[in-house]
Structure formats: structure tokens, C-alpha cells
């Protein structure tokens, strides 16, 4: 044994609760050079953009400012409108909340393949039983006046 004493009675147990200022971490994130423009296109024009690395022949969705495989910079000329349609690449029905409790109504989350990218988003207007890998889906945008410049400007993807 490494140490000579132990706590042996529950009544002696003590944990320290740091109270209100326990772990005060709050952040405000920019979307980045690519994200700023990507969300602007969704917000203003309802268009989804990818960026294409000619060398690797890959179109990233969402668009980026660099290719992760070869680290080439992807510039304005490399941005491509990839349309608002894709296919379900993988999906899951989430039964627990972020706090680990059972949800009243499970939510459907999918990785939607558009060009060479996977947009992670909700599925809507469809029954969980009907979802399958390879299912064509289309982005349902929020009305323009409700868009704020973020991934949630797309309401969900729905089958078509």
C-alpha cells in the first residue's frame, strides 16, 4: 500500500463542491475565413458551397481555405456551388439528451454526402423507419429573414 491512512467510513467522506464559480468557461467562436463565407452564402443566397482541391481532386463540403491532404491553399476560384442535394451516408436516431437522459422524442441525425464532403445535420419530414443509407435528401432552408449565419440556417435535410 502506498499510503498509511485511508478514509474508511462513509461519514468521513468529503467532496469539494466549488459552487457558483466552479469552472467558468464561456467562449465565443468565429466561424473562420471559410466558415464566414460559407455561412454568408447560405444566409444570403441559400447556396451551399464546397471548395475543390484540383491536385487531390476532392471537393470539401463545407468549403475550406486549405486541403487537409496536401495543405494547398484553396482560394476563391476553388469555391464551387455544390447544390442543395445529397445522399444519406450514415444516420442515427439519438435517444438521449446531452445530459444523458432519455429523450421524449428521439431525433434523427445524418451524415449527408454532398460532393466529397459529409454535412452533419438533422433529417426532417421523414419517418425513422424509412431512412436508409443512400437515400437522396435535399436541404430545407429557413426563410431568409430568419437566417442568422450558421449551420442552423438549414432547418434539416428531407427526402425527395
Amino acid at each position: 500500500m502506498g499510503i498509511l491512512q485511508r478514509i474508511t467510513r462513509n461519514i468521513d467522506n468529503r467532496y469539494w463542491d466549488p459552487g457558483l464559480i466552479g469552472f467558468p468557461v464561456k467562449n465565443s467562436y468565429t466561424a473562420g475565413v471559410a466558415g464566414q463565407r460559407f455561412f454568408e452564402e447560405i444566409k444570403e443566397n441559400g447556396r451551399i458551397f464546397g471548395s475543390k482541391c484540383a491536385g487531390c481532386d476532392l471537393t470539401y463540403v463545407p468549403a475550406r481555405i486549405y486541403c487537409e491532404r496536401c495543405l494547398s491553399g484553396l482560394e476563391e476560384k476553388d469555391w464551387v456551388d455544390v447544390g442543395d442535394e445529397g445522399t444519406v451516408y450514415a444516420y442515427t436516431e439519438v435517444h438521449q439528451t446531452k445530459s444523458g437522459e432519455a429523450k421524449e422524442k428521439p431525433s434523427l441525425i445524418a451524415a449527408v454526402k454532398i460532393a466529397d464532403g459529409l454535412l452533419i445535420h438533422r433529417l426532417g419530414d421523414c419517418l425513422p423507419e424509412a431512412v436508409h443509407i443512400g437515400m437522396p435528401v435535399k436541404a430545407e432552408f429557413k426563410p431568409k429573414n430568419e437566417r442568422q449565419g450558421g449551420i442552423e440556417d438549414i432547418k434539416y435535410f428531407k427526402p425527395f
Partner: protein
Amino acid sequence: MSEVVKVFGGTALSEKDISSGKIFLTKDSLDCAYAWDTGVAINRYLAELKKGNIIATRCRKCKRIVLPPRLFCELCFIPVNDWVYVHDSGVINTFSICHVHWDASRVKAGEDPHLPAVIEIDGASPGMGIMHLLGEVKPAKIKIGMKVKAVWRPEAERTGSITDIKYFKPI
């Protein structure tokens, strides 16, 4: 440098970029709550503070009396089991007069500044300090080397915490 590195990345944003709402921001906070196991040594340290005592441990090999108490000597690397009461007085090793709160907000005019100090506790080995606050003293009068004594909260208000000592005041 100029021959090979000509361009430096990094797009600086101004306060106006942010306040105008032109830049999209996502906000989030980490909703993690913690309940730390105090363990044997700190458990006893806190329990003794509640009684109005400061307790330390002594290593049988190097004879150091250390604060906060621990169940092992980090230098000799052996278990420690010799508990020693030390005094609630000591000497200021160093201090500061701090005009900002923990969250970086400014101490307002009329409010007292925070007076943190490292206090070498009497009865512990030389140099064995703890961080605490000073009180009942004009900031300009604080000196390194000054003798100080703990001012305890009334017994009924103590919870078994380092804050059971309100602060140290000069004697």
C-alpha cells in the same frame, strides 16, 4: 526572412466588426460541474480549519513540516503519517494589491482591493507558505517580512474551508 517568408496570415478583426454583427459568432459555455474528492490529507486539513486549527504533516526522513498537509513526502517519496498543529500566525513572504477580480472585471472605486499574500506559517518548516488574503491593514502599510495572524470566521459560520480564515492581519 523577407526572402522566404513574405506573407503572414491572420486576419485581424476590429471591435466594430464584432459589434456590427457582420461576423458570425457561435457562443457556448462548458456546463461541467465537478465534485472533487478531497482525499485523506486535505479532508483532515479542512476539518481542522473548521475547528480553528491549522494542521500540517511532518516527514520522518527529511523532517520537513509541510503545508497543506499531504500523505506522502514528494522529495523522500515515502508515506507520511505525522500530523502537527502549527500556529495561525506567520510572516509575509510576498504580497500584492490587486485591483481586478478573478473574472478580470475592475475593482470599483470605493471598493477595497484584494490583498493576496504568501504567508510563511509559524511552526512549519522555513519557507513553507500558503496563499491567503490580508485584511485590517492599509495597502500602503504592507511590507514583506511583516508578522501577521489569522482572523477566523465565527465558529458557527465555518464550513471546513480555507475561507474559514477570513484573512491575516498584522500583529
